[in-house]
């Protein structure tokens, strides 16, 4: 019985055993950081392959669900994590932080995110959330001689612990009223009678998860953490953890509470609109690009939650598509920021970007693509992402929220265009350093995906996402 279960857990096993092996290797040869990093990338790629080819079903008496949605999101999560290693490790080494723990922590974070994406039980939900967030807290503070990074790590840790508390409190209420931690049993209990206790627990779980995806009104930590944490680390935790938490959101709502769809839809619509509004308006006054993109990510998470709020399979499909395309945008943008520096000082404000098109045409062009894509201009990838979300919202009859979302998108266009204007039309602020090759490669590669490769990719992303969305228990 155990061996049959283990066949469902191959990606997890590969990552867990591989992380331990890398840790031992790193402890015995602490100078070989490149080797450990390379091993971690290989590990993540192998795990992604294993996730794509593993048998579908449930294992460990329902705790681990390996359906199409889990496979799809795991592949996306592992690949996004694999990109973070070549992006981050040289950055740290240039700043004199030569640690082999960076790739190991990324692998363990990816493991936790995979567990979140395939959780079928409140306990695996919590363990997965804790595993990935603990690794992220450490990554945020890893540049420990930098006061801002330490502050970011501490802030992230304290507020993250608070949100874990909310999550646990909600889970214990749900367990108390449903009598089980399994999503399938909770769905049965929730379907039998309207139970205020269960709904109370669900609201707490929603609050905890909204914290993890940084949706308003639980977004306060995001700008400070993004600003303080090392740029390549931000590139990592603005992307994959958000997808994992959104899939978890869909799992809890779709698998455990399909009967309470009417109730949680209202909550999600409020969260989505608040996020879009906060992201659009608070972003207008930011001059630091990392803070700006923190607000942009709050707004974008709002759109993903809006897709989920539709409460339909089409909505989940829109959410998955949105998150995958958004992950590429945000990773690419932060890769550009990682690549850019002026006399050894990283360029983080809009003024720093003035005249970049003459200095670094390739990176400026890539940043323009990402900004236009995040803005939602056709034919860039961000447009298709928003197209799916608004279509799902309109089909579910959410006309009002969709219109407000569109208005928020127009408001947010101002700050993306301000960045583009500074890069293309302002006079240059001085020579920039030669960009490191790995960050530039990642940035340009992802920009090429955002346009034009996305048009090709959509033809196979669309059926994959549709298949994944049908795995959830929503109509």
């Amino acid at each position, binding site marked *: 019985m155990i061996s049959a279960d283990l066949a469902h857990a191959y990606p997890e096993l590969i990552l867990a055993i591989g992380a331990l092996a890398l840790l031992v290797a790193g402890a015995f040869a602490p100078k070989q950081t490149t080797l450990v990093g390379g091993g971690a990338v290989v590990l993540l790629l192998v795990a992604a392959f294993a996730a794509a080819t593993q048998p579908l079903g449930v294992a460990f008496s329902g705790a681990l669900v390996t359906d199409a949605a889990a496979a799809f999101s795991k592949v996306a999560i592992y690949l996004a994590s694999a990109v973070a290693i070549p992006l981050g490790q040289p950055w740290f080494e240039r700043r004199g932080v030569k640690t082999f723990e960076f790739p190991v922590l990324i692998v363990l974070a990816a493991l936790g995110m995979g567990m979140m994406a395939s959780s079928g039980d409140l306990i*695996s939900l919590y*363990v997965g959330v804790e595993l990935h967030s603990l690794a992220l807290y450490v990554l945020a503070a890893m540049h420990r001689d930098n006061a801002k990074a330490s502050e970011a790590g501490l802030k992230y840790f304290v507020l993250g612990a608070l949100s874990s508390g909310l999550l646990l409190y909600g889970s214990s209420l749900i367990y108390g009223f449903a009598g089980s931690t399994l999503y399938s049993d909770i769905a049965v209990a929730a379907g039998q009678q309207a139970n205020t206790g269960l709904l109370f627990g669900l609201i707490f779980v929603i609050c905890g998860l909204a914290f993890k995806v940084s949706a308003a009104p639980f977004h306060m930590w995001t700008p400070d953490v993004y600003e303080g944490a090392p740029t390549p680390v931000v590139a990592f935790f603005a992307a994959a953890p958000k997808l994992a938490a959104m899939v978890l959101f869909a799992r809890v709502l779709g698998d455990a509470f399909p009967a309470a769809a009417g109730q949680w839809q209202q909550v999600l619509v409020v969260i989505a609109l608040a996020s879009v509004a906060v992201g659009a308006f608070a972003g207008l006054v930011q001059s630091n690009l990392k803070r700006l993109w923190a607000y942009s990510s709050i707004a974008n998470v709002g759109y993903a939650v809006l897709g989920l709020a539709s409460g339909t399979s089409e909505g989940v499909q829109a959410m998955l598509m949105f998150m995958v395309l958004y992950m590429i945008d945000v990773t690419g943008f932060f890769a550009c920021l990682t690549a850019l520096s002026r006399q050894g000082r990283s360029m983080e404000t809009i003024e720093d970007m003035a005249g970049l098109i003459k200095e670094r045409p390739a990176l400026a062009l890539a940043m323009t693509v990402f900004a236009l894509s995040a803005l939602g201009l056709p034919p860039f990838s961000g447009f298709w992402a928003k197209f799916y979300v608004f279509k799902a919202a309109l089909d579910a009859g959410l006309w009002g929220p969709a219109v407000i979302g569109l208005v928020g998108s127009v408001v947010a266009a101002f700050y993306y265009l301000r960045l583009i204007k500074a890069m293309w039309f302002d006079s240059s602020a001085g020579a920039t350093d030669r960009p490191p090759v790995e960050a530039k490669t990642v940035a340009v590669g992802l920009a090429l995906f955002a346009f034009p490769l996305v048009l090709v990719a959509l033809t196979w992303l669309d059926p994959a996402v549709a298949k994944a969305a049908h795995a959830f228990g929503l109509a």
Partner: protein
Amino acid sequence: MALQAIAFYVMAAVTVIAGFCVVSARNPVHSVLWLILTFFSAAGLFVLMGAEFLAMLLVVVYVGAVAVLFLFVVMMLDVDFAALRQGFAQYMPLGLLIAVFLAAEMVLVASTVATKGAAAHNDTPMASGFGMDAPNAEAIGRVLYTDYVYFFQASGLVLLVAMIGAIVLTLRHKPGVRRQVVMDQVLRSPKTGMKIANPKPGEGIGE
């Protein structure tokens, strides 16, 4: 049965008295020692109920780790306990009120569990769980490594990440720190470890 009752009353009395002494002891180190006694007698109560695994856990985790940690904190931090005690009489009524509420809630919960909860349907809740005729440490071990192996291993990974994090964020290799290298110590011979000097009177060896 009579022996069990005597043991229960003795240990319960020790628990309550020691608990009171934790609060009333003047010396904070004595407080921690009383706390350890409280833990031990609570562990004894668990054994009486047939929950020897919980008793073991209480001794190992609370006495072995938490209480020792308290001792370290009490001894290393310079906390002015006299200042902390100020206003004891002033806050006494409010504290007593809260204590009464807490006690009432606990009695309510305990009586509800005993009459309506799981304990009402099971005469020996701890001794033999899961239909197995095994001591409860073994019974817990059996489900922990079969049904719950996924959670168990994943929790282990969470602790591993916490450990890596603590090391990454705090360990510093400062230059000039003299570390103990056992290999060097073992390989030391009279030739390398000894220097014969012939100092002149009143000069000393110097460095």
